[in-house]
């Protein structure tokens, strides 16, 4: 029987997918380009991101029951369609192992100091493998359970650092680094909204497509709002230089929490938010890879390839990226180009062909 998820569960998956990785890297990325206008960069990135989501939504008509892969095949033809799906599949693979690598590095450096990143990556990939093999319905239900904890942690984090905020840090507003603030939109969108392309592989599983489209939009909006608040808090509390200097500036933000010398250093909250969001992001991308291979190979069940994919992901995650500086360069070059091609140009092309074929 086909697994189905509700529009609310899809909304949570959109929220988690946008915030995973982004919550940790966006403040640094946006501030590197926009300096004190970093939070404005995220505001505009959210607006453009919502336009990207509007394009994604336009691919699926109200009565659509076909999956993304079938739509691609129907519009591009068998050969070109298969190449496009392979291209998107490799993007999802790239995203997944880069995320796995990130979590291995972060946990190994800040939380379980001294633990080899390989061990952390292995634990995460095994957990995700179990989730993916249970199917999207279980992932959706699990996301429902974890959403309140994520939101509470996020609200606590931003609320508790508020007394430390200095509004001088965000001034002058749009007086200097204006070009940087606008150019910065591109890398910010690249690691947030363009990665949502993988969720198009799940959207046909939602039991109500019009509601799913609404959930897609609202999920992006809420996640964008959270990113704006977090970036604003980072710049206001630790300043522009501090935000740029710290790779995980939001984690440093958590270390700054000090309420009446009683409630101190609750950076664990950040780690918690990140674990949860990135888990669902990896699961969704992993699921996308599995169903894409299922479609390309004409298989009966996507579970057939999940175990070998987990092996591949594990080895790629521990061998492909040497350090965080290389990762940052990658996020601004190769990965960004790939994200634009897959997350923006491919859907636009698909939409144009779809409209042209209708006429």
């Amino acid at each position, binding site marked *: 029987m086909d697994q189905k998820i509700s529009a609310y569960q899809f909304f949570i998956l959109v929220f988690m997918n946008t915030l995973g990785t982004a919550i940790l890297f966006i403040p640094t990325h946006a501030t590197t380009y926009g300096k004190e206008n970093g939070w404005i960069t995220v505001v505009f990135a959210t607006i453009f991101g919502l336009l990207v989501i509007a394009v994604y939504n336009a691919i699926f008509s109200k009565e659509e029951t076909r999956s993304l892969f079938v739509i691609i095949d129907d519009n591009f033809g068998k050969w070109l369609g298969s190449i496009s799906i392979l291209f998107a599949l490799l993007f999802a693979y790239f995203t997944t192992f880069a995320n796995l690598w990130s979590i291995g590095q972060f946990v190994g450096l800040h939380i379980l100091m001294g633990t080899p990143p390989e061990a952390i990556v292995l634990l995460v990939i095994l957990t995700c493998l179990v989730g993916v093999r249970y199917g999207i319905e279980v992932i959706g239900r699990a996301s429902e359970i974890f959403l309140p904890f994520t939101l509470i942690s996020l609200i606590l984090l931003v609320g508790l650092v508020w007394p430390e905020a200095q509004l001088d840090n965000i001034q002058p507003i749009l007086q200097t680094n204006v070009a940087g603030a606008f150019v910065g939109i591109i890398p910010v969108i690249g690691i947030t909204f363009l990665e949502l392309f993988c969720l198009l592989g799940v959207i046909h599983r939602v039991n109500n497509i019009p509601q799913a489209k609404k959930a897609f939009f609202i999920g992006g909006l809420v996640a964008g709002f959270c990113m704006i608040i977090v970036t604003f808090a980072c710049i206001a509390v630790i300043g522009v230089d501090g935000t740029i200097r710290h790779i995980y500036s939001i984690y440093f933000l958590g270390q700054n929490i000090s309420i009446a010398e009683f409630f101190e250093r609750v950076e664990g909250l950040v780690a918690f938010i990140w674990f949860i969001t990135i888990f669902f992001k990896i699961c969704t991308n992993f699921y996308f890879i599995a169903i894409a291979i299922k479609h390309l190979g004409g298989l009966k069940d996507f579970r057939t*390839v999940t175990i070998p994919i987990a092996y591949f992901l594990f080895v790629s995650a*521990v061998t492909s990226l040497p350090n965080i500086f290389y990762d940052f360069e990658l996020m601004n070059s190769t990965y960004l180009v790939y994200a634009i091609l897959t997350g923006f140009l491919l859907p636009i092309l698909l939409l144009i062909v779809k409209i042209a074929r209708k006429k």
Partner: protein
Amino acid sequence: MLFPTILLMIVSVIVFYLEYKRIKQKQAKKDNWVFMIFMVLATIFLFVYMCDLPTPDFVAFFEFLFKPIRGPFFTWLIQYQ
């Protein structure tokens, strides 16, 4: 690395057998073949990594794929940092 390598290979064989049996019960011949090919490749991939031999570098592959675009794009982008 000898002990983890042997351990992982044993785990791989067990997983291979269990999953093979599961797919066989479903009478999906194509699935079985695809699984076997993928699993053999994945196990070789893992074995190569565990033996500290050079594994295929996916990032280098993607960098090669977008070589004409990524260089100029990156140069243009970082001037705004």
